[in-house]
């Protein structure tokens, strides 16, 4: 059985490729740099040089695969040149879908984001809930349009499933898609954490291993054209930081700072980065975003796929152990 996995040098894609290889799939991966130190190494993994924005390389890598997991994306909230969100996340996905339809791929799993669902109301949001606030940035729009494309190709006869991951944490690469590990590393290193004063704001945190298992569950049991949220526990910032503190085994200071101060600081930081022409991922707008409730319900995935959630404290223990082994603390 052959499977193509894109984004294999990224946080989730790497784990998907290794898991598929472990499950005895012949895994094709599409990488921009064959020598990339981030790419997964396994006897079952075959590397193809290319890029999802290049149709020819997509076709070559997908040849003879009956399954596809498309996890490649620009996974950050801002970029100097915002057109890459559309060329990679939307047009890249279109190339993947075109090739899958042309080559008769049997199952296509598209990794989307909780960002498409947006902020939550009184209850955690589920797959069918309407978006209740305006789209905010190019990343959200590009992933939304990519989802619309996937649905369109489903209507044209492709068996495709959308899985949506929220804020993902857990052992893995430190890259754009893995802001949670960067945060944890900083907390372990500095032995203090800045907790925003809006500490009752709730968001969903998914353990990376759950998300990976969820992809395979979706591939086995998911229904075509459906979307599944692969999340974790909904936690307030207060319990989020408390749980981290309890699991580090160290005396970590939690310092509460008001939101306006964080916004002001982020504004200054953004200005400095602007002057130095450095790319920044922090802006007052993103701070506002972090102050919104983003609770999600994984009930559909649990019910239909048999998805299960690793408790946050257990997931965080594993993550801290991983970071400690890498001598970060």
């Amino acid at each position: 059985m052959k499977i193509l996995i894109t984004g294999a040098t990224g946080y989730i894609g790497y784990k998907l490729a290794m898991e598929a290889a472990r499950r005895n799939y012949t895994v094709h991966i599409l990488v921009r740099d064959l020598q990339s130190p981030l790419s997964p190494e396994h006897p079952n993994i075959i590397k193809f040089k290319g890029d999802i924005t290049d149709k020819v390389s997509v076709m070559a890598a997908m040849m003879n695969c009956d399954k596809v997991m498309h996890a490649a994306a620009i996974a950050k909230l801002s970029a100097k040149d915002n057109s890459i969100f559309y060329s990679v996340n939307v047009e890249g996905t279109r190339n993947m879908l075109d090739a899958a339809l042309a080559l008769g791929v049997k199952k296509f799993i598209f990794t989307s984001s909780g960002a498409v669902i947006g902020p939550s109301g009184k209850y955690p949001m589920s797959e069918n809930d309407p978006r209740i606030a305006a789209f905010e940035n190019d990343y959200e729009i590009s992933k939304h349009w990519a989802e619309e494309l996937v649905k369109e190709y489903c209507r044209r006869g492709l068996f495709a499933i959308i899985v949506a991951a929220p804020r993902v944490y857990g052992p893995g690469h430190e890259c754009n898609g893995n802001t949670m590990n960067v945060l944890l590393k900083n907390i372990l290193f500095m032995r203090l954490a800045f907790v925003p004063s809006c500490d009752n704001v709730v968001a969903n945190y998914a353990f990376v291993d759950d998300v990976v298992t969820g992809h395979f569950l979706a591939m086995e049991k998911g229904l075509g054209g459906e979307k599944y949220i692969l999340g974790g526990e909904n936690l307030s910032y207060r319990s989020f930081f408390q749980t981290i503190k309890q699991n580090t085994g160290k005396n970590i200071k939690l310092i509460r700072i008001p939101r306006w101060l964080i916004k002001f600081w982020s504004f200054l930081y953004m200005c400095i980065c602007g002057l130095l022409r450095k790319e920044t991922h922090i802006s007052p707008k993103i701070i506002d975003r972090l102050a919104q409730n983003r609770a999600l319900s994984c009930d559909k995935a649990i019910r239909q796929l048999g998805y299960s959630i690793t408790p946050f404290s257990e997931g965080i223990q594993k993550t801290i152990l991983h970071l400690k082994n890498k001598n970060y603390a």
Partner: protein
Amino acid sequence: MHNKNFALITGASEGFGKALALECAARKMNLVLVALPGSGLSSLCCYIERNFGVTTYYFEHDLSKKEECYDLFNEINRLEITVNTIINNAGIGGTHYFDERNTEFYYKQIELNVVSPTLLTHLFLQHLSQHTPAYVLNVSSLASFFYLPKKQVYGATKSYLVAFSKSLRRELKSRGISVSVICPGGMNTNPQMVFQNLNTHGLSRWSIMNPETVAKIAIDGMLKKEEVIIPGFWNKLFMLFDKFLPKCYKEMLTDKSMRESKTINNPVIFSINPLKTAV
């Protein structure tokens, strides 16, 4: 369920209409929502009932057809509920040269933007006057005050709503019905608009507001019985400029802004969903 008052919101499936529906629900108003078939009203109603504990009904109608306006009225009467608030929000927008669209498009635009709010307000007048205080909120646009190129028919339909609202307001005041009109500027209503707005610069970008922010201002204004609601600092400033700047200077500004505002079409959405290009 009987004899409860309801707010009727047209074009409630997306953008500003959806934001208005959520805002009204947050204020514990019961809702009757109307939008085109297949636009996701059922999941919106589900969400609203679960999160806000209000009663909602939804109807899928194309209000640019006058028969469907009558159908809507009859269906609501059959439910034996009363409407004491009408928010005429459904409309067809668009920024294009006059000859870039065919006559059918403009006919439909006028029917939806002008005829349907007129009919609906007339049909529900009895509901309103029997359940005061009652409210009518018409959704116009800042384009009704600025005669911009590429907004000929759109701007004119929106000017109609301002004139209609202001006059009707004087007529209905004594009957306990307050008529308001809101004139928003640019809004982040749907992904396509957000995409365009992210790619605009300068003054027009600063003035862009999120629909949820405007919806709050709209309902506040409606309940305070304001005549014309202009949301946001920049939009208010534009109105002030309009009063004081000399005519020739204004013409220069609008010419310049039009030359700069190229409609950025995202290739994606236009190729996958031709239905959406109508709006």
